[in-house]
C-alpha cells in the first residue's frame, strides 16, 4: 500500500486547513467505544456496517502487546476473555486519552489489569502492558492509533479503495484538548478527521433522516419534532435535545459526563470484593490474573442481571480468595444509585438548557450499551412519564450509522431520493472564556451556543500604565478558572500607556463550522479609530499535557500584574 501506516503530521496539518479542500471519496463513519467499536459507510443508498474477517460488526476495542507486534481487537482472534486480562492487553483507551494523572477517571482506572501509574502532579499517567514479564510502556494515543490502523486496513480490504477521511464520534464531555488528542491519533494512523461528532448528535442526524424518509416532505419544511437522545456506553453518558424537521436537526442542548458501564462494573467489583483496591495495588502477575477473573465474573453478572432478577457469582480468584454470592438486581441498582442519579440530573439539565418541557418531547431515544440495563431504561422513561422509547434504532449501531451519514453528507455526496439532504446544526458542549476579574472565568461563548459562532467581550487594564496583558483561555463550566480546563494563553504587548480602565482590549472567540477555535485580541484607545497594535490571532488549544502547571507558573511569575477586568461602559 502506498500510504504508510504511520504518518507524522504537524499540528496544523491535523485539523482545520485541510477540511476546506474537496473530497472525492465518501468518508467512513467510525464509532470507537470504550469497550466496542464499529465502522459504517454510506453505500450509495443506505448505511452499511462493515464486518471484520470473523463476520463481526461490533469489535472489541483493545490492543494486545506480544513480542514485537501488537494486535488489536479488529483482526486478532479472540481466544478466551481471560487472555485479554493477562496484563498484555490495553483497553479503555477512550477513558484514558488526554487526561492527566490527577484526574479521578485515571485513578479509577488503576485497577484495570494493566499498569496505570500516577505521580499525581498533573502530567500524563504512565501506562504499560505486561509483555514477557516486562512492563512495556505505551500511551493511549499509541494504542488507539494501532487500533485505528487495523480498522482502516479492514475497511480498505472491504471497500477496495484507500481510506483517508473519517467521521468519528466522540463523547459530549470531551475537552478540546482531548479532541486534539483524538485528531492527532487519527493522523498517526494515516486518517484525516473530517468531523468529530458528539455521539448523540450523530444519533440526532440519523433520527433526522428517519423523519425525512417518513414524511417525504420538502426540505426545510415539515412538522418540527423534538427528540431527547440518551446515550450511555461503557465509558461515557451523553444527552442531547434536538429539534428536527425537513432533514435539519438543530441541536438545542448537550450534556455529558464520564459515567458508563465501566463505573457500574467497578462499583460492583468493589461490592463483591470490598478490599479489591488494596489487594491489586502491586500489579504483580498473580494480582493481574485475579483482577482479570473478578472483572470477567462481574461483567457476566451485570449482563445477566439485565434479563434476570438475580445471579450467582462464583469465582475463584486464586490464593484461596473465592467469591460465592447471589446478587440480585436491587443490590446492583443500590450499589450504583449515585450513578443513576447523575444520569437523571444530566437529562434534566439538558432539558432545562434546551428550554424544553417533558411534554414537548416527541421521541425519547435510548442508545448505547447501557440501554439494555432495565434501570437505565426505567430512569429515562420515568422522567418522561412512562413514554415508550423510540423504536427503530439499533442501540449499538445508531451512533456509527449517524457518523456514516454525516460522512456522506460532509463528503458532498448527493442522493437521488434526497436522503442525504440533511444538516445538523451543532452546539458547543462546554463554555469557552478567559480569566478576568481576578480568578474568575468569564465565558465568551456559553455552552449550547449554535456553531459556527463568533462572540466578543471588551476588557480593560487593572493598573495605570499597564502595557501588557495576559489572555488565559479556559473551557468548562466552573465559575473559577481552576475548575476549568486551560486551553492556552498568550500575551498582548504594546498597550499604550494610559490610566487603568481606559484601553479597550477586545477579545473575540470564533468557532468555525469545522469546530476550530480561534481567539483574537485587539487593543483600541478611546478616541482612536485604528487599533493601537496589530490584532493577535491564536488557534486553540495551544497547551500540551500539564496545563495545570502552566497556570500555576504563570500565576507565580506574573501575579496580577497582567490581569484584565471586563470593561464597564459608562452610560
Amino acid at each position, binding site marked *: 500500500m502506498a500510504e504508510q501506516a504511520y504518518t507524522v503530521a504537524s499540528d496544523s496539518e491535523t485539523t482545520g486547513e485541510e477540511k*476546506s*479542500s*474537496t473530497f472525492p471519496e465518501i468518508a467512513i463513519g467510525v464509532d470507537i467505544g470504550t469497550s466496542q467499536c464499529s465502522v459504517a459507510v454510506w453505500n450509495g443508498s443506505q448505511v452499511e456496517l462493515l464486518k471484520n474477517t470473523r463476520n463481526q460488526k461490533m469489535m472489541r476495542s483493545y490492543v494486545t502487546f506480544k513480542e514485537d507486534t501488537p494486535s488489536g481487537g479488529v483482526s486478532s482472534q479472540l481466544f478466551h476473555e481471560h487472555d485479554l486480562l493477562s496484563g498484555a492487553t490495553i483497553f479503555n483507551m477512550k477513558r484514558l486519552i488526554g487526561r492527566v494523572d490527577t484526574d479521578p477517571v485515571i485513578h479509577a482506572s488503576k485497577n484495570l489489569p494493566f499498569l496505570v501509574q500516577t505521580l499525581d502532579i498533573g502530567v500524563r499517567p504512565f501506562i504499560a502492558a505486561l509483555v514477557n514479564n516486562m512492563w512495556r510502556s505505551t500511551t493511549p494515543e499509541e494504542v488507539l492509533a494501532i487500533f485505528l490502523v487495523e480498522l482502516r486496513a479492514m475497511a480498505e480490504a472491504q471497500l477496495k479503495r484507500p481510506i483517508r477521511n473519517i467521521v468519528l464520534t466522540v463523547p459530549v464531555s470531551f475537552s478540546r484538548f482531548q479532541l486534539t488528542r483524538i485528531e492527532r491519533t487519527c493522523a498517526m494512523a494515516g486518517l484525516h478527521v473530517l468531523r468529530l461528532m458528539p455521539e448523540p448528535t450523530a444519533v440526532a442526524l440519523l433520527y433526522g433522516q428517519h423523519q425525512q424518509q417518513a414524511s417525504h416532505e420538502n*426540505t*426545510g*419544511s415539515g412538522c*418540527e419534532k423534538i427528540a431527547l437522545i440518551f446515550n450511555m456506553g461503557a465509558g461515557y453518558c451523553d444527552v442531547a435535545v434536538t429539534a428536527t*424537521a*425537513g*432533514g*435539519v436537526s*438543530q441541536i438545542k442542548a448537550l450534556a455529558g459526563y464520564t459515567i458508563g458501564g465501566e463505573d457500574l462494573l467497578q462499583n460492583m467489583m468493589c461490592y463483591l470484593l470490598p478490599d479489591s483496591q488494596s489487594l491489586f495495588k502491586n500489579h504483580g502477575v498473580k494480582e493481574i490474573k485475579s483482577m482479570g477473573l473478578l472483572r470477567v465474573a462481574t461483567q457476566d453478572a451485570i449482563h445477566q442481571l439485565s434479563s434476570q432478577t438475580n445471579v450467582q457469582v462464583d469465582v475463584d480468584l486464586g490464593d484461596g480468595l473465592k467469591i460465592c454470592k447471589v446478587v440480585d438486581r436491587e443490590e446492583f441498582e443500590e450499589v450504583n444509585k449515585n450513578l443513576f442519579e447523575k444520569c437523571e440530573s444530566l437529562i434534566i439539565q439538558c432539558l432545562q438548557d434546551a428550554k424544553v418541557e417533558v411534554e414537548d418531547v416527541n421521541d425519547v431515544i435510548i442508545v448505547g450499551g447501557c440501554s439494555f440495563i432495565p434501570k437505565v431504561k426505567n430512569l429515562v422513561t420515568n422522567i418522561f412519564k412512562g413514554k415508550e422509547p423510540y423504536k427503530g434504532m439499533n442501540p449499538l449501531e445508531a451512533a456509527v450509522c449517524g457518523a456514516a451519514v454525516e460522512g456522506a*453528507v*460532509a463528503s*458532498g455526496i448527493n442522493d437521488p431520493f434526497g436522503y442525504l*439532504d440533511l*444538516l*445538523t*446544526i451543532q452546539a458547543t458542549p462546554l463554555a469557552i472564556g478567559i480569566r478576568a476579574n481576578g480568578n474568575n472565568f*468569564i*465565558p*465568551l461563548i*456559553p455552552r449550547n451556543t*449554535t456553531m*459556527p*459562532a*463568533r*462572540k*466578543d*467581550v*471588551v476588557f480593560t487594564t487593572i493598573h495605570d500604565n499597564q502595557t501588557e496583558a495576559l489572555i488565559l483561555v479556559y473551557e468548562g463550566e466552573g465559575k473559577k478558572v481552576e475548575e476549568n480546563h486551560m486551553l492556552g494563553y498568550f500575551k498582548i504587548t504594546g498597550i499604550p500607556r494610559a490610566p487603568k480602565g481606559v484601553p*479597550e482590549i*477586545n477579545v*473575540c472567540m*470564533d468557532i*468555525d*463550522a469545522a469546530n476550530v477555535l*480561534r481567539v*483574537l485580541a*485587539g487593543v*483600541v484607545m*478611546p*478616541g*482612536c*479609530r*485604528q*487599533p493601537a497594535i*496589530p*490584532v493577535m*490571532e491564536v488557534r486553540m488549544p495551544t497547551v500540551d499535557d500539564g496545563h495545570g502547571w502552566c497556570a500555576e507558573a504563570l500565576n507565580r511569575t506574573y501575579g496580577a500584574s497582567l490581569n484584565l477586568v*471586563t*470593561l464597564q*461602559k459608562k*452610560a
Partner: protein
Amino acid sequence: MNTLSLSSNLSISKPFHCLPFSNKQQRPSHMKFVIVSCRTIKVKSNDTNLYNILSLSPKSATMDDIKKSYRSMALQHHPDVCHDPSMKEECTRMFVKVNAAYETLSNPMLREEYDCELGLRRRMISNVGVSEDEKWRRRWQQQVGGLKMRSRTRMGQKGGSWGNRMRTQNMKN
C-alpha cells in the same frame, strides 16, 4: 479572515455617544445600547432587518414560518452544506447572521421588543424618509445587533454587549 475582519471592526467600533432618542421610543432600557458604534454604513436597511434576513413578512410571520424559514436558510447557508471551499467564509458569515435573526425572532418577547424598536408596531419604515425621526430609525436599524445582546444578558450571560455590536458591524462589512 479573522485578523482582517477584526481589525476592520476595531477601526469602526468607536462608541457613539447618546443618540437622540425619539420620545415615541420611550424605553429606558435602551440606554444600555445607545453607545453602539454608529458610522454611516453603505448598507441597505434590508440587509439588517431581521425579517428580511429570514425572508419573512414582519406582520404575518408565525412561529412556524420563522422556524421553517430558519431551516431552509440553514440548508442554503450553513457552511456544512457549502462544498465550495472559497465560499465557506461567506457561508459562515451568512449563517451567523441567519442564526442571530432566528434567535431574536423565535423568542416571542425579544421579537415584540424588536418590532417595537423597529417601529413596526406603529408604521412601516420607509427608506426615503428624511426627517430626524427617520434618520434615527435607520440608524437604529443598523444597531439591531445590540438587541441580540440583550437577549444574551437575559439568558444569563454577563458582559458582551460590545461583542455583539462588533458582530453586527462585522456582518455589515
